[in-house]
């Protein structure tokens, strides 16, 4: 199956070469087969909006390839990035299960492959496949914990340096140890980092500059190097 966005689309979950340790990817064969029968596979370019906050839930979206940004608008109109969704995760799960509106807006950050399942079919699928229900419960719990962490971070940490240091430390968990420090690819703009930690773009730029002057981090294009993890932990209050 071909797609106009330079991606090879994989039509079947059972034989998919993109399978991850995600929500549906590691279900048993019979369960995957049932899922295959109700999903629609699509390719999206970067910048496509899958669903909008406040919209009635149509169904769920399983991200197979690419990255998706989940954002929410605060009471005073600011945009907050809830998280960056990685392949294997499901979007719109709690809205589809509860029958309420989507709590966030999902926008692709690069060309993505997405599987969509209609809400009624998904609920039937969950009811008929306990294994899928357990996976759904696990993803919802993980999402809940992430939301609580974000509330704690935004609500209890007023200091922008601490919030940025914590964000960089969390990001570095996906990095690679090198002679210079921990190298990690960070493709987010200062604006997006600000939306994630609850700070303005200017504050992120200034604080990153301070971290660089103290030889805590080095950013070269999309490559971030954590030069002094212990120093960053001191800022984070860890």
């Amino acid at each position, binding site marked *: 199956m071909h797609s106009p966005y330079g991606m090879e689309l994989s039509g079947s979950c059972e034989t998919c070469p993109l399978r991850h340790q995600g929500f549906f990817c590691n279900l048993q064969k019979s369960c995957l087969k049932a899922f295959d029968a109700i999903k629609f596979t699509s390719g999206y370019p970067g910048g496509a909006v899958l669903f909008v906050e406040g919209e009635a839930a149509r169904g769920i979206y399983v991200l197979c390839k690419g990255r998706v940004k989940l954002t929410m608008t605060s009471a005073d109109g600011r945009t907050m990035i809830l998280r960056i969704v990685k392949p294997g995760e499901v979007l719109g799960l*709690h809205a589809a299960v509860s029958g309420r509106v989507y709590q966030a807006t999902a926008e692709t950050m690069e060309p993505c492959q997405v599987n969509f399942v209609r809400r009624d079919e998904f609920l039937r699928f969950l009811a008929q496949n306990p294994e899928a229900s357990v996976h759904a419960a696990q993803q*919802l719990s993980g999402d809940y914990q992430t939301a609580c962490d974000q509330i704690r971070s935004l609500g209890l940490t007023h200091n922008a340096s601490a919030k940025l240091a914590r964000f960089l430390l969390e990001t570095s968990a996906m990095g690679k140890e090198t002679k210079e420090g921990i190298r990690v690819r960070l493709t987010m703009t200062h604006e997006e980092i600000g939306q994630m930690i609850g700070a303005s773009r200017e504050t992120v730029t200034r604080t990153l500059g301070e971290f660089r002057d103290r030889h805590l981090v080095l950013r070269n294009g999309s490559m971030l190097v954590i030069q002094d993890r212990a120093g960053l932990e001191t800022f984070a209050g860890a």
Partner: protein
Amino acid sequence: MHPQSVPVHVFHEDLFRGLKGSAGEDFAAIETRAFYTAGVSLFEADEPAFGLFVVHRGSVAVSNSNWEEGLAGCSTFLAGEVLGLSAAVSGEAYQASARTLELSEIGMVSRADFLEFLATHGEFAFRVVGLLSDSLNSACDHLRALPPAIQA
């Protein structure tokens, strides 16, 4: 609720009431019940989740701050309510600390046993998905409503 606290979601619905037939028997087989005097800690915030707790009698206070720092975001769990469900399912750390307020009868189910129970009893797993979904919706509402000064 304290404006700067992490929401403590109480599952008011008695999740385990009305478990019929094999589900009821299976749940009874994995649950360990015990009496706790007042002031006993059931779990602490940031501790890796080892299981969930069901209040059968008495009451439990759940707080998302350290006990020494006061009781920001405190909720009281009464008979029939469940504690630590989300952490037990996800396997992450508890988001809050729980302590008995009086002599209480508490049931404890280990994480591994509970996940196995969910996988065996689909109808129950579906109810858990619904409850967790409600919790996440509440957390999102809470996040959206954080005061502007805090987000600046």
